[in-house]
């Protein structure tokens, strides 16, 4: 949402320099816009640091099984229940600070006595998987719908735009909460265990269904203005097929908003997914989940506040890093918007 105001101006202002680049100006400096962007980005120290942090998070998520094997714990074993002395009579960690010690780096979970460190690792893994999937789906949908509406214009544009308006009118968070059980019920079989995958797919579907419109609307606007430009006209005159025009002429000019949007979308989906789990409509036990850790933490905060800090601080770092990364990416693409 908020980025739309910030990224809306580039096609108008920056295009003479950037937009024309792929077609003609490439030969001048011998550098593609991608290379230019990369050079600019590399000079941005904040951007590099936050990129590293983001990469670390993804690596942690990817390598969670390996890390937990090296660490010697898994997120499913109820250490505190199986081993006396870890949990007290109310099933809270006996040791101070949530039971942190050399063995359990982040302490043990209240009630079930699982290892917090591996819970968090695997929780991040679950959440990132969902958020990434939703982001990718939204990007694809947003690009397809936005470009179609913008390029074809006319009645198609009108219908698609009204459809987007309609979906945007749904109260987002409420709809996620309300429709998750609906979609879930469509998948569930009456007997047997419902695989976690189905839950994940449900969450992805719901978030995707109401998550792509912002990007589509933004891209539509950009395509609409690009369509009138000379180089597109030129391509049309030379008899290029619409597909070619979209691929070769339009898309290269849309990379900036797409990339910037995706750096904004991903953390939003991570927090949305966490919010759903916090409200009790997300991923359920025993699958580790970042958001459910907040629900657990909030439930036990009076007796074990330490537990809350691990998922909490991890999420703040993650979102800050992603936001900074988004800013840097935008700056790198669009030197003009830099303050």
């Amino acid at each position: 949402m908020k980025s739309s105001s910030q990224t809306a101006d580039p096609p108008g202002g920056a295009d003479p320099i950037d937009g024309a680049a792929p077609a003609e100006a490439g030969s001048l400096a011998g550098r593609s816009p991608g290379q230019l962007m990369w050079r600019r980005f590399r000079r941005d120290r904040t951007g590099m640091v936050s990129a590293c942090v983001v990469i670390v998070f993804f690596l942690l998520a990817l390598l969670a099984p390996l890390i937990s094997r090296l660490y010697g714990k898994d997120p499913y074993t109820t250490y505190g229940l199986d081993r006396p002395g870890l949990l007290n009579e109310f099933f809270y960690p006996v040791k101070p600070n949530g039971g942190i010690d050399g063995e359990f780096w982040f302490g043990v979970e209240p009630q079930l006595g699982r290892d917090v460190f591996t819970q968090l690792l695997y929780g991040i893994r679950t959440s990132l998987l969902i958020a990434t999937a939703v982001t990718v789906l939204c990007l694809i949908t947003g690009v397809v719908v936005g470009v179609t509406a913008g390029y074809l214009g006319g009645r198609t544009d009108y219908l698609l735009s009204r459809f987007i308006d309609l979906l945007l009118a749904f109260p987002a968070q409420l709809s996620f909460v309300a429709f998750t059980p609906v979609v879930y019920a469509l998948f569930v079989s009456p007997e047997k265990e419902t695989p976690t995958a189905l839950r994940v797919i449900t969450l992805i579907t719901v978030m995707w269904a109401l998550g792509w419109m912002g990007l589509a609307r933004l891209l539509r606007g950009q395509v609409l203005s690009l369509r009138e430009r000379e180089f597109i006209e030129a391509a049309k005159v030379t008899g290029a097929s619409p597909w070619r025009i979209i691929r070769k002429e339009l898309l290269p000019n849309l990379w900036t908003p797409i990339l910037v949007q995706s750096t904004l979308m991903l953390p939003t989906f991570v927090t949305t997914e966490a919010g759903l789990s916090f409200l009790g409509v997300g991923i359920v036990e025993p699958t580790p989940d970042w958001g459910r850790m907040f629900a657990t933490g909030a439930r036990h905060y009076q007796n074990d506040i330490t537990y809350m800090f691990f998922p909490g601080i991890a999420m703040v770092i993650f979102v800050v890093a992603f936001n900074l990364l988004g800013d840097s990416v935008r700056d790198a693409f669009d030197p003009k918007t830099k303050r």
Partner: protein
Amino acid sequence: MRRGRDRLSDPSRPPYRRLYRKIRDAMLRFLVRRSLGAMVIILLISAITFFLFFAVPSEPAQLACGKNCDPDAIRIINHNLGLDDPVPVQYWHYLVGIFAGRDFDIGHCSAPCLGYSFRNDQPVWETILDRYPTTLSLAVGGTVVFLVVGVSIGMIAAARRGTFADKFLSSLSLVGNSMQIYFVGTIALWLLVDSWGVLDRPEYVPVTQDPVGWFSGMLLPWLVLSIIFIANYSRMTRSLMIEQLDEDHVRTARAKGMSHRTVFFRYAWRGAIAPIVTLVGIDMGSLFGGAMVTEFTFTLHGLGRLAVDSVTQKDLPMLMGVMLFSCTAIVIANIIVDALYAVIDPRVRLA
């Protein structure tokens, strides 16, 4: 163009009186048109929601049936609730009920009839009205806090552009923006309520009953809720103000020797106000629909909580009602914002 605006907004001059009336008419036409559009949107949303909910196999009669329940009883309840009709017919009855009221087995349900809860047979409309003050208090109070704090921070940052204060405030708002209510809220509860006892435990007391209790009960939720919004406003205010300060008319004003303060508040601020109003409208609209996570974190019983509860309890009429109510709130908020926008900035045509 810009200079014209100042004269235009002065209706006391005769030649502009007609123009003023024209604007008012345009405004009226705008409101009518937008309201019609809004009705269509709300109708569509309600239809989609209704069909989605009722597409799910569930046995709502079971909920209403009680313990000594047999298939006959279920059939009767299904009939009484009209659940044995086809879904489109049910939807039609639902719509009619909203405008004309509806007769149920339990009694007549008058005009804005959103049906009865499957769970406790309570009228949906009254339940929503009952929960609404909490949500309203949360939304209004939260908005005041984030608006005042956010805009002030943004203005300070703009006024001291490039200084340490600017950078500090900017990074502060960035971190604030990355906070999650379920995290900050819990930590704040723990620190401010449980450990230090500085603030009261959040609870909703009707303002009419005990204004002080209302204020102290809502203070923490307001503060926490506003943290995540403040960043947006401070960032936006800052960049808008900087932009405005660079505008020709503002520079001219400064060149004419007007005081820094006058320039800042009279000229630059006026230019920045419109986009901020837009954002406030959008945010308030969504808050009116219920801030679920905030209400959950602080165990307040507003619309958001009602929505989540009715989801977990499969209370479809209640959920439908809340959904419709929040959609309406959002759509109305949008219309008001657009209208206000036109009032603040007459360059915007009401078209």
